Structure formats: C-alpha cells, structure tokens
C-alpha cells in the first residue's frame, strides 16, 4: 500500500473520530433529556417495591445522594465530566459500577452477535450466490421467497416461535437464560453456554441472511450480465470456475461492506432476541435500564452501542480502501 493511501486513511479516521465525538455528545444529551422527561420516577425505580415504606424525607435524601435535585444541565455536566475521567457512574438498579455491568454483558452479547453475524454473513452470501447462479429455477424462487418472507418477520415473533418449537415442544434447547438456572457460576461449562446460545443466535441469523442474500443475488446478477463475464464466456470459462475467477471478487466486497454496515440492525435484533430468550446481554440490560429509569446505566449502554455501530460503519468504509484496487492503487497515468 502506498503512502498516499495511508495518509488518506489517516485523514479519514481523524475525520470520522471527530464526527463520532460530536455525535456521541449529541446522543448522550438527547438520551439524557428523554429519560429525565420520561414519566418514570428514578427514585421509585431505585427503591422498587419498598416504596410505601419510604417517607418524603428519605426520598429527598436519596435524590440528594444521586444528585437528582440539581437542574438537568448540572446533572448532565457532572455526569459528563465524570465520563471524561473514565467513570461511567453507578447503576441504580444493579448498584454496581456501570462499566463493570457493561463489560460483563457485552461479552455475552458479543458472543451472540458475532456468532449470528458470521453465520448470517456466510450463509446469506452462499444463498445469494446460489440464487443468482441458478436464476429462475426452483432453488432461486425458494431462496427469494424465503428472504422476502423473513425480511418482514419481526425478530421477537420468530424468537417466540423458535422457543415454542425447539425448546418447549422438542425440548432440544433450554427455554432461556445464558446459563443453566441453579448452577453455580464456576460449574457452568462452555458446552452449557453454547447450548444456551444456539437458539438466540439462530433466531438472529435466520433473519439476518435475508439482506445479504438478496443483495448478493442482485450484485451477482449484475456481474453475470456484464461485458467482462460475457468475454470470459467467449473465452471458454463457465460454471463455478467462472464465478470463482470473475464473480467472487466483484460481489464479495459489497457483501462484506453490507455486513459491517448492518451492525446497527444486528444490535437492534439482539435487543429483542435477548429479551425473548432472557439472555443476559446488553440488549436485556438496555430494556431494563430503560423501563426502570436507570439513567447512568442507560447512558453507558447508549455510548457503548453507538460506538459499536460506528465501528461497524468505519470498517465498512475502510474495506474499500484496503480491498478495492481501484481505490488502493489509484495513480495517475
């Protein structure tokens, strides 16, 4: 790779980082405002069912302790300055540092999302390729039908269906949770974790393939109709060899890009799937934090997910710099 491109990438990353920083500030502020104006009372959320036993004086003390009696902007600034020192605050519902919770939850979610991401990427790509190579045959029609149906299926609905069929009726997989219930943490095996991971990961992948497959199919059809594929045919190339030499390169790049750019949908899907499967990941924590008004945790999660989606998009953009020779080796003639 030449120096010019490296400088290009450097500049590109710098610009992206600035954009990210401003975006994060805006997202945090908006989420902060939204939560503060939501009908949920954070003190009630904190105390939970013991609300009746707490008098107004105690309420005030709690409010003072969390800084809830200050004006919103003061609360935001004090939260923000703590954040700059790396302190995400303390979760009100879990009563533990937010960073710790996110770290632990993120590992769970990450495994789930990566599994679903890789599976849906590979399977979706293969489906798209088969569909395009066998255009208008029953295989193509079936794959298209599947994708259009799946693309319009809500994740939670499919998750419930999977639960009913595979966990309740067939009993192949546990009904929920990330680990077996009633087993000590140190006794949980990797096999247990994988066993619990399969259903939610499958739910996410089954839906995730639709986009990649349809996109790859269309791209490959364009490529197959191109003049360079016509010329390859005129030179005696055909079938899988022709796809391997002229199709793969030309469709893999857009597919990989699409897959990285789909991080946001992946995250969104994970939130719903985790909820259905009571899988203890970021998604589930987000729902709880939102419902119970846990401002520090929710804001931490917002930052975390925004970063995650952003990184996916940056990688999607970078792929063209790294993989596409038309950008990588551009030079004047």
């Amino acid at each position, binding site marked *: 790779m030449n120096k010019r491109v490296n400088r290009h990438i450097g500049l590109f990353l710098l610009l992206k980082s600035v954009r990210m920083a401003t975006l994060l500030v805006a997202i945090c502020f908006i989420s902060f405002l939204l939560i503060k104006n939501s009908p949920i009372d954070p003190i009630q959320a904190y105390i939970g069912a013991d609300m009746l036993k707490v008098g107004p004086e105690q309420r005030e003390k709690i409010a003072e302790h969390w800084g809830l009696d200050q004006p919103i902007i003061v609360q935001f600034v004090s939260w923000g300055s703590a954040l700059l020192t790396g302190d995400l605050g303390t979760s009100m519902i879990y009563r533990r540092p937010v960073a710790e919770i996110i770290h632990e939850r993120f590992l769970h979610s990450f495994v789930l999302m990566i599994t679903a991401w890789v599976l849906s990427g590979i399977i979706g790509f293969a489906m798209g390729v088969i569909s395009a190579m066998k255009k208008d045959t029953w295989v193509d029609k079936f794959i298209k039908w599947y994708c259009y149906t799946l693309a319009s299926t809500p994740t939670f609905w499919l998750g419930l269906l999977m639960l009913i069929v595979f966990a309740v009726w067939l009993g192949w997989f546990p009904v929920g949770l990330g680990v077996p219930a009633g087993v000590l943490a140190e006794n949980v095996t990797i096999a247990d974790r994988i066993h619990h991971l399969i259903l939610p990961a499958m739910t996410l992948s089954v839906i995730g393939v639709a986009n990649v497959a349809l996109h790859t199919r269309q791209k490959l059809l364009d490529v197959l109709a*191109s*003049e*360079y594929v*016509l*010329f*390859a*045919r*005129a*030179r*005696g*190339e*055909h079938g899988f060899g022709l796809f391997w*030499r*002229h199709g793969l*390169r*030309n469709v893999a790049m857009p597919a990989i890009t699409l897959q990285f750019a789909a991080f946001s949908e992946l995250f969104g899907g994970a939130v719903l799937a985790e909820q259905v499967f009571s899988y203890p990941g970021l998604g589930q924590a987000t729902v709880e934090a939102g419902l119970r008004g846990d401002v520090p945790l929710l804001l931490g999660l917002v930052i975390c997910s925004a970063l995650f989606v952003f990184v996916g998009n940056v990688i999607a953009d970078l792929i063209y710099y790294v993989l*596409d*020779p*038309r950008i990588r*080796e*551009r*030079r004047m*003639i």
Partner: protein
Amino acid sequence: MSILEVEDLSISFKQYTGGLKQKHHHVITDLTVTLEAGEILAVVGASGSGKSLLAHAILGILPSNAGMSGTIKYAGDELTAARQRAVRGKEIVLVPQSVNYLDPLMRVGAQVRTSVKQGDAIRAQRKVFQRYHLKSDVENMYPFQLSGGMARRTLLSTAMVSEANVIIADEPTPGMDPAVIVEALHHFRELADNGCAVMLITHDIESALKIADKIAVFYAGTTVEVAPVDDFFGNGEALRHPYSKALWRALPQNDFIPIRGSQPDPSALPSGCLFAPRCEKATLECGQARPEMRNLRNGMVRCIHAT
C-alpha cells in the same frame, strides 16, 4: 474447405410495444459469409449493420432474448451450442469491441495469461506485451490504471497469445497509436500466413486494404458484397454493389460524397432489396424480392443489376 461458413444467418429481437403487440427487430437477415484458413477477411459497414452480432453469434454469446436461424459451420461441421462451448477460447477467439470486456478486479497480465492454453503462459504474455510496447509493470495493473490504447492492446494480446485457428477481431484498433496499429495489423497478417483465419471488423477501410485478402461489406444486417481487396481502387468501378461503391466514394480520401438517406430501421425493413430506398439504380423489380447472394467476377454480390 472453408474453416468457417456462415449461411443464411438471421437474428432478430422481440420487443413488446405496449399491450401484447410484438415488434420484431430483424438485425441480421440472410447473412452469408465464409472465412478461409490463411486469409484475412475485413468486415466493413455502417454502425448498426450487425457486425458485432455476427461475431457474438459465431461464439455463441448472443443475448438470451435473441432469436437465431441459419447455420454456422466450423471445419466442415455444424457449430452447435455444445461445440461452441468446446471450441471458444481455444480454437475460435474474440477480440471484443469495448474495453469494458476486461474484468475490473483482475490484473491484466493474468487476464491475458488465461488465454494461453499450452506452454509457458507467463512467457507468452510477456512476449506479446513487449511486442505491443506495454512495459513490464503493466501486467500487474488493473484495467482502470490503463489508458484506452493500453486496454485495447491488452484485449488484442488475449487473442494473439491464444494460438487459435480463427480470430474474430471486433474493431481492435481505435484509440491506439498509429505505430501500434501498424504492429497489430502486421501481427494479424503474420498469424494468417501461418494458417490462421482472421475476421477483422473495422471502420478503417484504408488500413484493412493493406493487410486483408477480401472485404465483406455489410448493410442493414446482411452482406451485400464480398470482394477481393484489389477491387477497391479508383472510383470503385471494379466493385459490384451500389452500396459498396457509394461507401468507397464516401471516404474522405476519395470523393467524400456522403450517401443520402439512412440505414432502414430493423423493425421496418423494406420487403425487397434492403438498399432499394437509397439506391440510384433501383428499378421496380428491386422492390419485389430480396436479391440472392450470387457469384460475380471472383467475388459475391447481392444485387440483381450488378455486373
């Protein structure tokens, strides 16, 4: 025996124009042409006269919506779809008309090496690049890094390294340096002298005359005349067909008189001679039936009044 014989080839496209009405575009009509081993046949004719489609028909790469009739024979036997698949790229090769026929994501050296069916592919590719003044770093470039002329030379190289029996070159020279054009034409002549048959589709009659043996003149999707190159001189008095004569006289170096009128629309061809609406020699008889291709003075013509 001719190596390639195209007989009564017709190609049409169906087009639906509103509702269920169908329009047939007769883009090639009763085309007959033969190619001999050791000979260069230049094919000339106006844009849209079906030159590229003939090339694609021979290789079996017509668009799927094209309807085709007539026969194509290669080495004496009919060139069926299965046989086309077997011989293309090996015995019959194409130099396509546009540089878009190069794979944008494949290094051009590799694209040329694909065509080498036997022997050392790298050596063959380097040799042909050297011959066409392509520097040694060009083989590692991608098509977007090439100038138009370089891309043309790459396309040409794919055919030149192939050791095929038949080369069909669809306008291989536009955008090249004059020196490289001369080199390319010499190369075609050399291959022909070694027994290869070359069909050179071109707009450049002047260059074609220098190396070709025969010239086929296309008009509105058919061959109107096949003449030995020696007949192209003076005012075209040795030529047989009124269109060939007019085309010859329309060249800048000759009288530079354009032919009036234009080629008929493929969806509304005249019922008689396709050239009749523009022909100065046309008689009532010309409009009644399509003239057959006939032998005349060591050439062929499709005109009832030709002498």
